[in-house]
């Protein structure tokens, strides 16, 4: 069984084998970019469902271009396919 305090020290000593920060930033940028491309449409839908108010207005304004990108590239279809195929709760 893993002993929790030992585990901290063990992983700390192995942290030196990790990835340099600059490369982590690249990885994170790619993560956000791909997530926006694939999920921009759903982000806009989520913003639409927020209660009326300034937060909803800002969310709609911010997610509008993301929706456009996702729709233009057609990548929104990936999530749509998952929802239609596997998630009956979300089907229209």
């Amino acid at each position, binding site marked *: *069984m893993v002993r929790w305090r030992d585990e901290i020290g063990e992983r700390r000593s192995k942290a030196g*084998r990790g990835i340099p920060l600059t490369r982590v930033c*690249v990885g994170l940028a790619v*993560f956000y970019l791909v997530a926006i491309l694939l999920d921009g449409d759903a982000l806009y839908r*989520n913003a639409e469902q927020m209660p009326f108010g300034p937060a909803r207005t800002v969310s709609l304004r911010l997610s509008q271009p993301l929706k456009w990108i996702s729709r233009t590239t057609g990548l929104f279809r990936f999530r749509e396919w998952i929802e239609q195929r596997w998630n009956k709760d979300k089907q229209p």
Partner: protein
Amino acid sequence: MLFPTTAFAVFFAIVFLLHWALITRTGPWKLFTLISSYFFYGFWNWKFAFLIGGFSIINHGFAVLIHRTPVESPRRRHLLALVCFLDLGVLAFFKYFGFLTLTVFQTLAAVGLPVPEGSMMTLLELAGRIVLPVGISFFTFQGLSYVIDVYRGEIRPGKTLLDFSIYLAFFPQLVAGPIVRACDLLPQMETPPRRLLPLDTGRAAFLILTGLFKKIVVANFLAGNLADPVFASPEAYGAQDAILGVWAYALQIYCDFSAYSDIAIGVSLLMGFHFPINFNAPYFATSMQDFWHRWHISLSTWLRDYLYIPLGGSRNGELMTYRNQFLTFLLGGLWHGAGWTFVIWGAFHGAYLSIERFLGRLRHRNQPAAAAEPTGAFSIFWRRIWVFQFVCVSWIFFRSQTLDDALALFRSMGHWSGPVTLWTPTFLAVLAIGWLVQFLDGTRMEAAWNRFSRIPVALQGAACAVVLLIILGLGPQGVAPFIYFQF
């Protein structure tokens, strides 16, 4: 702010960049970490950021006073008692005021004493208006462990109030744990890395994504389709469905709470901080003692070090050990919530642990402790099943709103002739997944983390985004709060 939301994704991107941009300049970095943590907490209700600020000032102030007071002086003990009283007083006011008021008036009425109706209504009205600050139980315990450790001489107080404030408010663990001790996190806060360290991204990504999967897909599904309907109207279900609903809740609460811990540990890793693990496949436990070594480890070790051992632990004979175990779990139950159902849940665990200890000592009187561990696969299997079923029975009290609700569910479990509606292949498959995700706990997947760390970072980022999208696609619309937020 909830982890699986767009708001947190935006917040984290900004905080991550600024955190690493400022890390080599200690002063600005500390200030930024504090402000970002308060923003995270205040996003829910900004007024309570002052509460946690006040908590930091009081606990750090007392810790410094205790540290400066000579060890032999009785003043040290008085200072400790005072700060514990203040901390627990704040917790009692926000969390237990309504429960205590109602209990006092019900007791008065039960023994036939006159109940002043005007005062009762005023106090209950006041109790109804008190909003429970999210995570108060967690940061109260962290504050208590800090001052007690300083009193015991195990740690020295934080170098500055700012260091302690960051430790207490650090956003990944602020609202639902793990309860990270000052001795583990404070040194990391006081001396942040002076250079940009390599990051354990494989483990961080793995923990965050598995946490999101457990919460968004498994826990939400089990809650919405099985546990919530069964607990909402148990009389509508027969025994088979009621049992399935209870199993579903057991796996839901595990997936929900361990998900929060996993995400908190993963997010902290991306910021260069190391937290202890909080769950280690709890339903693989072969005894109740083993279960508490695997479930909410940061709480069980807290209760052991700051309650069970000060009560006397196992130092004063068998009877006192049973009493200490029982009291520890009784109070542990009350920590979870202000209600008799939580007290019974704690008492159930305390009593079972005492009985287990008693029977173990009878069976293995002249053998070392290791002999009590099951060895054969058959024995391990049955003991796991037995412990899981017992834990499930205790969850009935934990989940039910009132004792009557819990009893109604027990009654449903006696109706074997009722219709069976919930035993569908889909529900059973999700239950199985909820069980199997325990294999992801601890360091079982270390080889996978290391392999993932070795693939090109751009590919890592893209793969994480695709997996996240699949998780979001499989989950229901909207995000339910984590169960432990209410504690």
